[in-house]
C-alpha cells in the first residue's frame, strides 16, 4: 500500500524522481513504518514528502518511448523546474512566475479552435484533453538564454489533437495564443512584449510526434508558473516557442506573427530551432548550462532530436531561416 502510493504512475519511482527526492521518500517511508503509523500516515504524506503544495497527481498517465531510460540523462530537480521560469506574464525575474502565479485561475478554462478546420469551436479544457492519451514525455528543454533542463512532462500528442479537429487543405500553420488577463497576469500591465503572447508552428512541425500539449510534469497537474493548465512543448526548439496557458489555436494558410519575433526579429526567428551553429546576437548557442551543473556542455543540433525532426527542414538554409 505504501509503495503503491509512492508510485506516480506505472513508472517506478526511481525512474521518474530525482535521487534526492526518491531517497527522501524512502527515508520518509522508513520513518513512517518505524513510527508504526502505517497506511494512514502514508496516505496523508505520500503525495509530497519533500514539498508542500504540489499539484494533484494525474491519473492514467502512460509511459511513452520518450522516457528517462531512452533519454539517458538525469531529471532536473522539481524545484528548479518550478522556481526558475521565464513566463513574463508573471514578471521578468526567474522567480517571479512562481511567486506571482499562486492565485492564477485555471478552471474553468476553454480553448478556442479556429480557422481552417473541420470542427471549430470553443472547447472546455476537459473535453479538449479527454479524447487523447496522457503520456509521460521526458524531454530536454533548451532556453535561448543558453541554459537547459530535463523535464518529465505529461501531455497529449499535438498531432492527435490536430487530427481530431480535422484541419482543411488551407491549414499550413497553427497559431497559438496565451490568455490575456492583466488582472491575473500582472506582467501584462507592462509592455515588455505585445500581449497576448503569440506563437506558431508550421503544420508539419506541429504534426511531428515530438510535439505535445503538456498538462503536467512530474506526474502532477501543471504548476501555474509552468504554463497551466495547458502549454505547448517542442523540445527541438528554444523554450520560448513552447507557449504557455493556451486559450486559442488557429489553423491558417499564412505564417502567423510570433511575439519574440515581433519584439526583435533579428534575434528570434519564426523557426527558432535549437542550433549550435547559428549564433544569436545575445548568447552564443554553442554551449548550454544544464541547470544543476557547473560546466557548460556542448549544445546538440535540434537539442539532440535531429533524428526525429531534421527532415522537416531539408533544403532550408537554417542560417537565414533561424
Amino acid at each position: 500500500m505504501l509503495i503503491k502510493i509512492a508510485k506516480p504512475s506505472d513508472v517506478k519511482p526511481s525512474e521518474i524522481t530525482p535521487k534526492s527526492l526518491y531517497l527522501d521518500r524512502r527515508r520518509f517511508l522508513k520513518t513512517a513504518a518505524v513510527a508504526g503509523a502505517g497506511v494512514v500516515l502514508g496516505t496523508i504524506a505520500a503525495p509530497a514528502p519533500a514539498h508542500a503544495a504540489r499539484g494533484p497527481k494525474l491519473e492514467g498517465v502512460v509511459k511513452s518511448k520518450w522516457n528517462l531510460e531512452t533519454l539517458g540523462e538525469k531529471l532536473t530537480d522539481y524545484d528548479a523546474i518550478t522556481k526558475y521560469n521565464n513566463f513574463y506574464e508573471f514578471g521578468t525575474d526567474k522567480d517571479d512566475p512562481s511567486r506571482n502565479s499562486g492565485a492564477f485561475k485555471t478552471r474553468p478554462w476553454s480553448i478556442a479552435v479556429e480557422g481552417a478546420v473541420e470542427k471549430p469551436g470553443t472547447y472546455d479544457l476537459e473535453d479538449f484533453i479527454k479524447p487523447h492519451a496522457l503520456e509521460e514525455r521526458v524531454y530536454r528543454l533548451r532556453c535561448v538564454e543558453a541554459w537547459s533542463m530535463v523535464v518529465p512532462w505529461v501531455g497529449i500528442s499535438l498531432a492527435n489533437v490536430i487530427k481530431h479537429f480535422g484541419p482543411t487543405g488551407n491549414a499550413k500553420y497553427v497559431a497559438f495564443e496565451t490568455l490575456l488577463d492583466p488582472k491575473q497576469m500582472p506582467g501584462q500591465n507592462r509592455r515588455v512584449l505585445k500581449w497576448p503572447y503569440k506563437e506558431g508552428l508550421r503544420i508539419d512541425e506541429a504534426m511531428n510526434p515530438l510535439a505535445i500539449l503538456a498538462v503536467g510534469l512530474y506526474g502532477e497537474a501543471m504548476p501555474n508558473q509552468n504554463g497551466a493548465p495547458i502549454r505547448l512543448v517542442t523540445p527541438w526548439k528554444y523554450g520560448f516557442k513552447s507557449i504557455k496557458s493556451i486559450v486559442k489555436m488557429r489553423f491558417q494558410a499564412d505564417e502567423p506573427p510570433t511575439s519574440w519575433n515581433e519584439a526583435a526579429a533579428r534575434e528570434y526567428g519564426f523557426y527558432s530551432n535549437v542550433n549550435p551553429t547559428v549564433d544569436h546576437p545575445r548568447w552564443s548557442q554553442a554551449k548550454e548550462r544544464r541547470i544543476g551543473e557547473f560546466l557548460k556542455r556542448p549544445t546538440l543540433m535540434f537539442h539532440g532530436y535531429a533524428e526525429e525532426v531534421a527532415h522537416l527542414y531539408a533544403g532550408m538554409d537554417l542560417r537565414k531561416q533561424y
Partner: protein
Amino acid sequence: MTRETAIRWVAKPIVFTSALLPLVWLAWVVATSDLGPKGPLGANPIEYVNRHLGDWAIRFLLMALAVTPLRGITGWAQLTRFRRMLGLFAFFYVCLHMSSYIGLDQFFDWRAIWKDIVKRNYITVGMLTFVMLLPLAITSTKGMVKRLGGQRWTKLHRLVYPAGIAACFHFYMMRKGVQLEPIVYALICAALLGYRIAAHLKKKAARTAKGAATRVAADASRDRGKAGAPAS
C-alpha cells in the same frame, strides 16, 4: 572630535565597510547555503552571482556619479571626500563581475569569451565600459593626480560620464524585451548627468550675463569720459 577625524575615522570606515557588504553577504551565502534550487541563489547560482556583482557595479558607479549633484543640492562640500572610494568600489565590483563571467560563466573558455566580446553587443559595450573605467581607477591616487596635473586629471576623469551611459546600455541590452529595471537605472543616470549639463549651462549663462554687465558698465564709463565733464 574634529570634522576631519569624524570623516577620516568614522564616516569613511562606515562607508567602506558598507560597500563591502554585498560581497561579504554573497561570499557568506555561497559558503554556507544550499546552492540548489531551494537555496537563496535559486536554480542557477552562477547567473545569480554574475548579476548580483553587475548590479552592485552599476549601483556604485551611479553613487559615485551622484556625489557632485548631491553636493550641489545640499551644499555639503565634504561629500566629495567619498567620491573616490565610491568610484573605486564601482571598479572593484566591475572586476568581480567580469571575473565571474570569465571564471564561472565561461570557465576560462577564452575562445568563447573573445567571440562574445566581439559578437555580443551587450558584452562589447560592457567591455568598453571596463576599458573606460580602467584608466580612472589607475589614476585615482593622489600621486597620479599630481603627476597628471589637476586640469588634465579632471579632463581624463570626464570619461566616467560615457562609462555611466555605457553601463546603462549594457544593462538594458542584456535584458530581453522592454524591461523596467534597466530603464530605471538609465533614468537615474540621465538625471545625474542632466544635473551637470544644467549646472554647466547656468554657469555659462551667468558668466555671459556677468560679462555683459561689465561690458555695459565699461561702455557707460567710457561715454561718461567722452562727455568730459563730471556731473558732480
